[in-house]
Structures are given as structure tokens and as C-alpha cells.
């Protein structure tokens, strides 16, 4: 199973990079970042297999509901990404789909690091399958 690494830069630049733990795929050629079926999400692929290996969103602090919901609904329509699950060592998560991975990233980098969680929720541990529900609930709760 491939591993995902997230990089984040204020205010909302997020990248997820998939790698083979054996490091056997790094010499392959990229396509460069290209539009995907999910709004605001660009995807870079292996030029031969067209399998995605990197995803970037420039404005995740604003577009996270679109990105996470889009990944949940449409990820299976992306070439070479059908139903793939990932391990995320930096989050101690195993065997999770992309929408859960991006939900964890929003929860960790923006809600937790930005101190945006209500005081009572800061120390609450979220179960892996609950990250999407928690983050999208936050989106609904902040609709003005």
C-alpha cells in the first residue's frame, strides 16, 4: 500500500504526495500538475501508467468542502485512482481513502494548528472513519 505525505503552507496550500515505501517509483516521469474532476484540485501522474502520485490544492482553507466532497463522490472516476487506500504515517492512519486523508489534513493543519476548534473539541480524539463527518460538520456550522 502506498504512503501519503502532506505538506502545508499558510494560508491553504496543501499537497499530498504518494510514494511506494520501497522507493521503486521515484525515477518515473511526471505529467505535471493538471486539472482533475474535483474543483481546485490538481493532480500529477506517472506519465507512463497515468497513475496519480501527487495532489495539490492552492486554496484548501476555502475550498475544503468542495475538495473533500468531490474526492468522496468522484475519486473513483479519476483514471488510475479507483478506490485506492493509503497509509499516512504522519497521522498514524492506515488504509484510508483520499477523502479521509484530506479531511485529516484540514482537521490537523487548519483547525488544530490554527486553533480554530472550539475549546471542548481540542482534545477530542477523532476516529479515522469520522474525519470527513467532523470536517464537513464544521463547514456546515460555519455557514454564515
Amino acid at each position, binding site marked *: 500500500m502506498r504512503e501519503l505525505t502532506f*505538506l502545508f503552507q499558510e494560508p491553504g496550500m496543501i499537497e499530498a504526495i504518494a510514494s511506494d515505501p520501497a522507493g521503486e*517509483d*521515484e525515477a518515473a516521469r511526471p505529467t505535471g500538475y493538471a486539472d482533475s474532476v474535483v474543483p481546485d484540485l490538481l493532480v500529477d501522474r506517472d506519465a507512463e501508467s497515468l497513475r496519480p502520485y501527487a495532489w495539490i490544492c492552492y*486554496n484548501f482553507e*476555502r475550498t475544503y468542502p468542495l475538495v473533500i466532497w468531490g474526492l468522496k463522490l468522484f475519486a473513483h472516476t479519476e483514471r488510475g485512482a479507483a478506490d485506492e487506500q493509503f497509509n499516512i504515517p504522519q497521522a498514524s492512519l492506515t488504509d484510508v481513502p483520499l477523502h479521509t486523508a484530506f479531511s485529516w489534513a484540514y482537521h490537523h493543519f487548519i483547525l488544530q494548528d490554527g486553533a480554530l476548534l472550539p475549546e471542548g473539541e481540542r482534545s477530542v480524539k477523532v476516529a479515522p472513519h469520522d474525519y470527513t463527518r467532523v470536517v464537513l460538520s464544521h463547514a456546515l456550522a460555519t455557514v454564515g
Partner: protein
Amino acid sequence: MGQDPPVFITIIDNTGREKRQRVEYTVADIHGETVYVTSGGLRYIRDSLWAKGRQRFLLDELDRIPDVISRPDIVIWDSRASDDTLIYYKRLHIQSERQHWLVAAVVKLRRGLKFLYNFHLQESDKVKGYHLDIPPEIWYLNPQRRKRNFGL
């Protein structure tokens, strides 16, 4: 590159906190506006390119960032953040790869100041959002290029 940029600059993060950033250098972009290249921005770019093993060869091209910003082929507003994100694109010949690549320099505006946020490979001939019903707004187009060369 500009002369004598300030050593540090203060930017405001998402939560209103002030963050000091060391300015490595400044670039006057194609319209003469100053773009700040900070140590934090460059660190992100290096970490990101290193992590993306397939784009790692771009690490040797970081000194071409000023050329991309000051003499781009096309600059668009990001259609998902058309008030604070500009994307400068330029087709570069990468000697080590023996081929041309379209590269993107992502610039964010914070309180009237422009900062470099990312530098990466872009799919050939297609800018971000090219396929949208309402295409991204063009901020600058090199007179020697056509917008159809970028999928628009």
C-alpha cells in the same frame, strides 16, 4: 532581482496572528510589482519538490524563478481565488531533461503584498482551470503567445 529588500517582513496568517518571514530576495514582476520571495516560501518549494521524486529535477532550476515572474508567458488569476492568487506560467527548456516544461509560480497577495508560495511543473499547454465553463481571467499574456497555447 531588486536591491536591498527588507530583511524581515510580517505577514498575517489565517487566524490573524503575525508571522515574521525572512526575505531572501524580491523580484519586479511583468507589471513592475514587487514579489517577495521568503525563506519560508523557498523552504516549502524545496521540501515539496524533494518529496515529489518525479519533479525533483526542478530543484536545479530554482534560480530561474525570477525569470518566470518577471518574463512570464501568461499570468492568470486562480479561478478559485480570484482576489488573492496569481499564477505565473512560463515554458522553460530544462537542460537536464532535454525537453521543454511548462512551470508555474504561485503568488499569493496578503494585505497588498505579493509572496511566492509555490513553484512546480504544470501539464503542458494547459493552465489551471482551462476546462471550466468560465475560464480563468488573464492578468498578462506575452504578446508573442496566444491564449489557445495554454488551453484557453
